[in-house]
């Protein structure tokens, strides 16, 4: 237990050191650059405080976060269902494999623009566009997992007549957990970037919208301030949500 605490502390120290080093490099480069193009940490910090003090930062980050979560949940559920079905049923896999490759290679921009044209400039279109971008990635990852399911355990489930529901819950999903975790991780990073583009193109709120407006007046400190704020939120989700959850999922491992 003690070594665990020490390890935790050392890890925090390393994270702090790494952030300080980043700020130092940034400051150093900014000293030689045009301050309008690359403002230093102090000016970006001031912009951050500004945005926070009138509440705009929290509102926009909150709205973006809500869109990220909505499209993320949608993409995970639909993608997992498709992936598991393709991994378990060879006929479906043969039939839809090339569809999956097509959607995997469809540029995010095309999906976003088409969603706005077909569904209108509304929230549903925004969330759908992001989800459609993420679904193929989730499906491909979960398909790998579903193909690699342990046959011995499935036979055991069949002999003991666990039925579909309990087999899924106790036998299949735990084996897919690492694949879920994988697509959750890569998904979080991908989805929030796409959400910003969606907001830039067709919404009048959220981090993407603010960055779009700042771009029009070349307000680089605001662009960086919002980008950093959101990256911080994603980092917090990783540290406070995903990592503890993963530890919980893995506690049965030796």
């Amino acid at each position, binding site marked *: 237990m003690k070594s665990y605490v020490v390890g935790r502390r050392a890890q925090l120290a390393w994270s702090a050191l790494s952030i300080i080093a980043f700020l130092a490099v940034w400051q150093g480069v900014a000293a030689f650059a045009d301050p309008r193009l690359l403002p230093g940490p102090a000016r970006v910090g001031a912009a951050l405080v500004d945005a926070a003090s009138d509440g705009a930062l929290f509102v926009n980050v909150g709205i973006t976060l809500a869109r990220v979560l909505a499209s993320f949940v949608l993409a995970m559920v639909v993608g997992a269902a498709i992936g598991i079905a393709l991994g378990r049923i060879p006929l479906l896999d043969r039939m839809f494999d090339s569809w999956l490759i097509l959607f995997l290679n469809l540029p995010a921009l095309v999906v976003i623009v088409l969603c706005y044209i077909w569904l209108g400039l509304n929230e549903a279109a925004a969330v759908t566009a992001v989800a459609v971008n993420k679904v193929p990635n989730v499906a491909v990852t979960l398909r790998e997992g579903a193909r690699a399911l342990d046959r*011995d*355990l499935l*036979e055991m489930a069949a*002999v*003991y007549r666990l039925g579909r529901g309990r087999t899924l819950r*106790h036998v299949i999903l*735990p084996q897919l957990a690492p694949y879920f975790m994988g697509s959750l991780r890569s998904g979080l990073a991908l989805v929030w970037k796409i959400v910003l583009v969606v907001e830039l193109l067709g919404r009048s709120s959220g981090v993407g919208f603010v960055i779009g407006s700042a771009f029009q007046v070349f307000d680089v400190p605001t662009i960086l301030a919002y980008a950093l704020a959101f990256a911080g939120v994603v980092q917090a989700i990783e540290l406070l949500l995903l990592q503890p959850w993963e530890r919980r999922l893995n506690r049965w*491992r*030796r």
Partner: protein
Amino acid sequence: MTGLKIDILRKRYPAADGSPARRIFEEFHLDVETGTFVCLLGPSGVGKTTLLNIVAGLDPDYSGQVVFSRRSRPCLAYVFQTPRLLPWRTVLENVMLPLPPGDKARNSALSLLDEMGLSDALNVYPDRLSLGMQRRVALARAFAIRPDILLMDEPLVSLDEATADRLRDHLAAMLEIRPATVLFVTHDSLDAVRLADRIIVLSGSPAEIVKDIRVGLSRGERRDKAVVEAFRRDNLAGDR
């Protein structure tokens, strides 16, 4: 409980990756009366596990049929060669798994695990247990559903002698309380003599029953090494 009647007209494994096609069973018949403990003895690859898989319904790729005498779809438990426990569920959860959820399941799982001497390991994950203990958990899971038919595929293999002895005693004690028709696959004739009412020796390709021996030993005699050795020498010489 129920007996069963196995009629396999043909079971083959097709040629694959350079290994030739194998004929496992042709015109194979075996009747097992209700409540009998049958040991299937024979060399590796003769088709013992295949036979269990066919009875369990895991291998539908054969022509023929398996008919159960009293119930068309009997309650069937299978103790596999490897324990096949869910590594992400605790010992207790693994034993409760095949039961309808509830307090009743919990209580019967608890008492089974207690009988198997596993009360201290209820909340342990299987990977942290020795193979012998994992096998005991698998046995508890099998008895949890109160099976009519119990299939066992070399459940004592790769255990040291003392652990195997203990598991054998557990199995015998369990069957006293919860009788079942048993098909027990082994390549160890010692196991066969110590446990079985009837020993079937399989050999050849396609497999044939070369010996069908009734074992009329009492419980006391089965524990007597000399008696078991003598029975083995007289009846199973050459079958290991």
